[in-house]
């Protein structure tokens, strides 16, 4: 028997389990200054942060929603619960995490991954971190990996104040303003000069409450000559009402420093993922983004690299898989602001079962950025004619001594390739899944093995029921 539609609701079960968190504290839905004040109070913000939130709320109310990109009318802010606090404190051992929450993360494989292949883990459940721990040898190198809230009350307060929402300001767009007003949770990482963190850190974001929003803020500072790989994972069970994710990631990559930021995003298909990620790279530094977008009902996601120092570099490798009911608008932005900078973008998009995927990018080369290079390559795969795939790459070049290249391709799975694999004994489904996995392997090759495996599982899952 062939598997058909409703695949989402059946096979996503490993992500879709949910539990009723009766003890959790939820703020009223909607968005008013009172609600923002209450969040600020509950979170014990310093005064500057309280003021920041209220100002961001004003900006949010002033700004309009984007006139490009996927529709977001299904999202009504009056229905969104902006703050849901699980009934626990943040722990540094899994034993202290309440049983059902711990069970959630066990099923997602987080503690196991921590034991086997990570230097540190943060786990967020709804609006707050429930677990944060970093290996001692990494801590001994002077690496700070903690939640942003406690860092704000410690010796790093000034550093946070100096960087928090300076790269992504509330004026950037309406959902950045929203984030500024109601942000909660997320991680703070500081890697001191010259320190190389050999194995990755990971934060996992789980949104459990129906109709809720998650607004975590990740602030990472990789100081001069340091090196860090940070992995971000996210998922949520599916509900019939809209959930919202409007997180922010701000990365400061110092002189000659290197950072890799990997994400496998697998939000449930009722999620509006309006996330903002940005990195600023100083002289000789490098940012590498690895991004897999599989979940969400609607996504707006374009990690941005600001190449601020001479010789700064960026690489973006992304894959987006838009299945039934999904409208995923993803891509990246690069701004070349200094001489000898280079950017490299390589993406793959797949559309299936009526899904819409859009690759959107912008490469801006400013006057100062002489001798810069940029290369953008994007490929899209259409798996049927109910789906849609658009490519919208923009290049804005303001100086002459540059090498800018762009190429894009759109097409389908070749019948010959399917036939070839079937002649070796694969079913048509398996053949197509294998071809799609191969198509996306630019990204999976960049991921640590276990994440690559997870990504290929996700692809296989999405490919089931694609024929018939």
């Amino acid at each position, binding site marked *: 028997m062939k598997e058909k539609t409703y695949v989402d609701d059946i096979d996503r079960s490993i992500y879709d389990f949910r539990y009723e968190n009766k003890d959790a504290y939820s703020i009223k839905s909607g968005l008013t200054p009172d609600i923002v004040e209450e969040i600020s109070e509950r979170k014990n913000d310093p005064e500057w942060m309280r003021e920041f939130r209220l100002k961001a709320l004003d900006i949010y109310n002033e700004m309009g929603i984007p006139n490009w990109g996927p529709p977001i009318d299904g999202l009504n802010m009056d229905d969104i619960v902006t703050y849901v606090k699980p009934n626990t404190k943040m722990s540094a051992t899994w034993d202290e995490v309440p049983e059902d929450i711990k069970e959630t993360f066990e099923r997602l494989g987080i503690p196991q991954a921590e034991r086997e292949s990570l230097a540190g883990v943060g786990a967020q459940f709804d609006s707050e971190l429930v677990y944060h721990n970093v290996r001692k040898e990494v801590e001994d190198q002077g690496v700070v990996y903690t939640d942003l809230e406690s860092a704000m009350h410690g010796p790093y307060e000034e550093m946070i104040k100096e960087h928090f929402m300076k790269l992504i300001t509330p004026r950037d767009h309406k959902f950045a303003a929203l984030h500024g007003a109601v942000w909660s949770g997320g991680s703070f990482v500081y890697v001191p000069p010259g320190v190389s963190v050999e194995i990755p850190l990971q934060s996992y974001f789980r949104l459990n409450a129906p109709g809720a929003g998650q607004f975590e803020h990740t602030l990472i500072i990789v100081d001069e000559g340091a090196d860090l790989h940070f992995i971000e994972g996210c998922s949520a069970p599916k509900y019939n009402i809209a959930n919202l994710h409007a997180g922010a990631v701000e990365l400061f990559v110092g002189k000659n420093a290197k950072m890799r930021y990997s994400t496998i995003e697998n939000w449930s298909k009722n999620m509006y993922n309006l996330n903002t990620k940005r990195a600023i790279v100083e002289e000789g530094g490098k940012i590498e983004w690895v991004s897999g977008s599989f979940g969400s009902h609607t996504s707006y996601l374009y990690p941005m690299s600001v190449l601020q120092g001479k010789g700064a570099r960026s690489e973006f490798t992304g894959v987006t898989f838009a299945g039934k009911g999904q409208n995923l608008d993803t891509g990246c932005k690069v701004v070349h602001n200094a001489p000898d900078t280079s950017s490299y973008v390589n993406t793959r998009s797949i559309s299936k079962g009526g899904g819409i995927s859009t690759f959107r990018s912008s490469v*801006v080369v400013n006057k100062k950025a002489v001798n810069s290079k940029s290369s953008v390559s994007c490929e*899209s795969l259409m798996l049927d*004619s109910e789906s*849609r795939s658009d490519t919208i790459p923009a290049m804005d070049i303001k100086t*002459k001594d540059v090498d800018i290249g762009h190429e894009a391709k759109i097409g389908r799975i070749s019948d010959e390739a399917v036939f070839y694999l079937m002649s070796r004994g694969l079913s048509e489904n398996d053949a197509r899944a294998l071809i799609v996995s191969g198509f996306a392997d630019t990204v999976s090759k960049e991921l640590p093995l276990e994440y690559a495996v997870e990504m290929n599982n996700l692809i296989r899952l999405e490919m089931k029921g694609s024929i018939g």
Partner: protein
Amino acid sequence: MSELIKVNNIPAPTWNHLRMNDANVSIVKDFINKDIKTDAEAVTSLIGDNGKVDIVEGSAIAEVKTGMGDEIYDKVVNSLYKDTDNKVLHIYVDEDKNVEKPVMLSFEPDGSLSELDSLYVEVSKGASLTIYMKCAEEIKANDASGSDSATEAKTEAKDGADKASFIASFKAKVAENAKLTLVQVYGSVPNVTVFNDIGVTVEDKGNFNLVQIFKGDTSIYSGLRTDLIGDKSELDVNIGYDVNSDHVLDLNYISNHFGKKTLSSINVAGVLYDTSKKTFRGSIDFKNGSSGSVGHEVEDVLLMDDEVHNKTIPLILCAEEDVSGTHGATIGRIDDEISFYLETRGIAKEKVYDIMAKAKTDSIIAKISDSDVKNDISKLLYGASEDE
């Protein structure tokens, strides 16, 4: 009196801050009130008994959509059709007739008042027609010195907003198995801002071939929308440009693939000098049902001066599985290896750029099959035809 209008809207908008979604431009609305006597006679004798030439009202062609978008019609052109003597020259070619000689149309707007020139072409089943449209001041033969006519920037201070407008509106229907070739050349047309707007529908196995050369001391807004409605219908576009001084070249080219096994190719090659600005929007839009269709788009831009500003946004929109679309863009300087290779054959570094810049236009001229047209363009651009 002038009015600010939006032209060249991209079919799928992106971030507003990039200012690529459309162009806002001021259009001077003091127009010459005229009909089309002069050209009509010449054209009539050329078409002969292959078809007919007449004058129609603007309202007759309202349904053909163009690349510049509706606003220029809603705010400017339609009222000219209605309230003045501006009419549309209509060329109709009968079934299976091949008009051998190209129809030559020459415009020399003087810039004192704005001007609208409208053309509507119907090429019937199996027929073929070539139209050559030239808009330029004729240059004197003695200042022909080959490649450097374009490189010498003229830096007159002038404000685009105050210049008269020259609007060329070209609409066409290409029937089954018919072929329409349009060659347009814009040389130097001082004191006007050019609006060159094209809308064409192509039926089964029909072919629309467009060659455009924009090479002069003028700001130009140009749009093309082609609806490939018939199966196996084709669009072939080749554009060459030089933009100098503080001029603007703003392009919006849309290929809508409706029919099955349709084919489109958009090839753009150009050079930017001085403080010029160029925007190229190129869209291949595979509609649902356009199975078996193929679209290619490529732009190659050579940047010659520090203050140039290049914007490129090549779209592929796709709602059909069984299609193949590609686009590529190369923007910037000449690769060091290439430059060295050319230098080993005796070409000085500075000359490498001039030669490659000229080659861009030449490669577009080479796409023109009619040798009279080719020679006329060479004369216009270089003062001598290629054979001399």
